[in-house]
């Protein structure tokens, strides 16, 4: 898959889903393979889009242009892009309350996503969903959920259907370390292993569930250990290293497509902002935050690319500035879009 096509198309105003579709025409399988320079640069660009998108969201929230309960994934972009970069549009992704990045990485149209967050009729869900409940069906981002752990079973269902249809599709679910203590998560590991479903569990272990560190939620240090109990291959990787994520994910996708069942990919990462926008974050040491800022996945990957001479200084700058332009356009699209009519409140309750 070549992100660049998508990227450029995106700039030219095509919807994310169209982009991804276009991009995936020439999608080479298997997912595990050597990445060339342009592909690497495109990963960086996608991380930048997510970063710029969420920084814009944060600014709009501060300006009260966007309201609601917002959970940003700033600092976790390497997971979203590392994972989704290896998927096709019709692979199905499920997210959670912190999923703007997952949806964008899967090819959701930033315009419609921003409009959704801004509560506009042009949003993916006509403003009915909101930040924690993103659905971008055209891009294969099936749904997020405000219920921690809520989408894990759903992804199993998608994997079940995919397997029955025999199309080689995979299902992926993103969830946090906090979700790792929920019953449905454990029931899901069991069923996924029992039925050998083509599902990939992507745990974004950012060390905190709301204000409480993982160590106060469980004695199990690596959530991948649970997968191992079920015989599900599980790896714990540095989630701020996009190439490490991509490597683990590549194996997972290949296995799933080959009918070899589920994989668990635990990505150690950190959210650089509060649990939600407005969270004063008093439960974390500033020094911890500073340490993790040094591991910022974008800066870090930029250094890698520089070292590999995979792109020029201009490319790096352009990656960021293009992303900001794209996102500015998205914000403009969103804020100039119409609100839903109040009467929409009671429509679409039943199909």
């Amino acid at each position, binding site marked *: 898959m070549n992100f660049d096509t998508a990227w450029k198309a995106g700039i030219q105003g095509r919807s994310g889903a169209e982009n991804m579709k276009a991009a995936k025409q020439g999608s080479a399988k298997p997912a595990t393979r050597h990445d060339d320079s342009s592909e690497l640069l495109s990963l960086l660009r996608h991380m930048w889009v997510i970063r710029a998108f969420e920084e814009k969201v944060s600014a709009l929230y501060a300006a009260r242009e966007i309201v609601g309960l917002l959970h940003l994934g700033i600092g976790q972009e390497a997971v979203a892009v590392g994972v989704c970069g290896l998927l096709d549009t019709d692979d199905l992704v499920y997210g959670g309350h912190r999923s703007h990045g997952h949806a964008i990485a899967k090819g959701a149209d930033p315009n419609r996503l921003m409009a959704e967050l801004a509560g506009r009729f042009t949003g993916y869900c006509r403003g009915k969903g909101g930040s924690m409940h993103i659905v971008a069906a055209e891009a294969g981002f099936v749904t997020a959920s405000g219920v921690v752990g809520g989408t894990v079973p759903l992804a199993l269902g998608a994997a079940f259907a995919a397997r029955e249809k025999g199309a080689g599709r995979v299902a992926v679910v993103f969830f946090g370390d906090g979700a790792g203590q929920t019953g449905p998560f454990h029931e899901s590991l*069991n069923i996924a292993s029992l039925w050998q479903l083509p599902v990939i569990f992507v745990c974004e272990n950012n060390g905190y569930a709301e204000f409480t560190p993982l160590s106060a939620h469980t004695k199990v240090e690596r959530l991948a250990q649970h997968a191992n109990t079920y015989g599900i291959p599980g790896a714990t990787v540095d989630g701020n290293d996009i190439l490490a994520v991509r490597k683990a994910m590549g194996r997972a996708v290949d296995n799933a497509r080959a009918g070899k069942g589920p994989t668990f990919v635990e990505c150690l990462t950190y959210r650089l902002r509060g649990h939600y926008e407005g969270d004063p974050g008093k439960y974390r040491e500033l020094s911890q935050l500073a340490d993790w800022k040094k591991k910022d996945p974008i800066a870090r990957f930029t250094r890698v690319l520089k070292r590999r001479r995979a792109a020029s200084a201009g490319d790096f700058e352009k990656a960021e500035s293009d992303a900001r332009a794209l996102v500015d356009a998205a914000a403009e699209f969103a804020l100039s879009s119409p609100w839903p009519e109040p009467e929409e409140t009671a429509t679409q309750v039943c199909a």
Partner: protein
Amino acid sequence: MPELSYLEAIRSGLLAEMRDDPSVYVFGEDVALGGPFGVTQGIAEELGSHRVVNTPISEGTVMGVAIGAALSGLRPVVEIMFVDFITLAMDQLVNHAAKLHYMSGGQLRVPLTVRVQCGVQGNMGAHHSQSLESWFLHVPGLKVVMPSNPADADSLMRDAIRDDNPVLFVEHRGLYFTRAEVPEGGSGRAMDRAAVLRSGTDVTVAAVSRMVAPAREAAEALAAEGISVEVVDLRSLVPLDVETLVNSVRKTSRLIVVHEAVEQGGVGAEVAARVQEQALYYLDSPILRVAAPNAPVPCAPPLENFFVPDKERVVAAVHRTLASQPA
């Protein structure tokens, strides 16, 4: 027209849809072997074991799996062995199945049928005997049906599976072995509409599920006294067919609602609220509810018998409503 038991009729409706549509799958505990009551018996043998999926005891996740499969284009039928255990699947059913069509602004659909078995039968006690259907009246996005007889069981099952929304299909264990004729190929769409089973002029008795039988017996007995009772089988709780009820009450001016669930917060409350709203000036006496007392379901036979409303209680309520007049 073959005579089927209620249980066989559920299977007949299910099997008809499964034969027609390869995207219909069954999920549940022990379903491959038919489940504890035998509803799904023989389906795996006929249609392949991949279509009838045994699950671990993980009600919440299994519900989620079925929803996820529905989002991907299957039409799953998930069995919750006793409605008492739907308490373990409420998040998936309420927060996900019922809402995703709406929350996605119409992008998603959840064509899911949830089979639950409910009711008092066989002294099983408070964890295997509840009737909880009324909770789901309060969950926008869900439909709820509750057949009282084999023909409706067959038809409502077909309708439920074909519906593009999540439908809760509530079976009463105490009806499983009651038999009646069931038209081959189904008796036509039964969903969304109440059925007037007996027409009458003095009192309307609206009943649900197993309570339809004592309502009819009461009507029979009261006829001998010269009291003419109209019996309505609600059948569909969501949507609730208020029109049929209101039309009936305009004629009879009196209404009694009969259900086996406990009275407080039961379906009877919603029926009473809606009917008085639309037909207050036709009412000659208060709408009465004949329902279980507000208690958990006890186990011992004398208590269990007392718990479940019967013909006598319906008859007494009819006498009460007929005697009722302004103070």
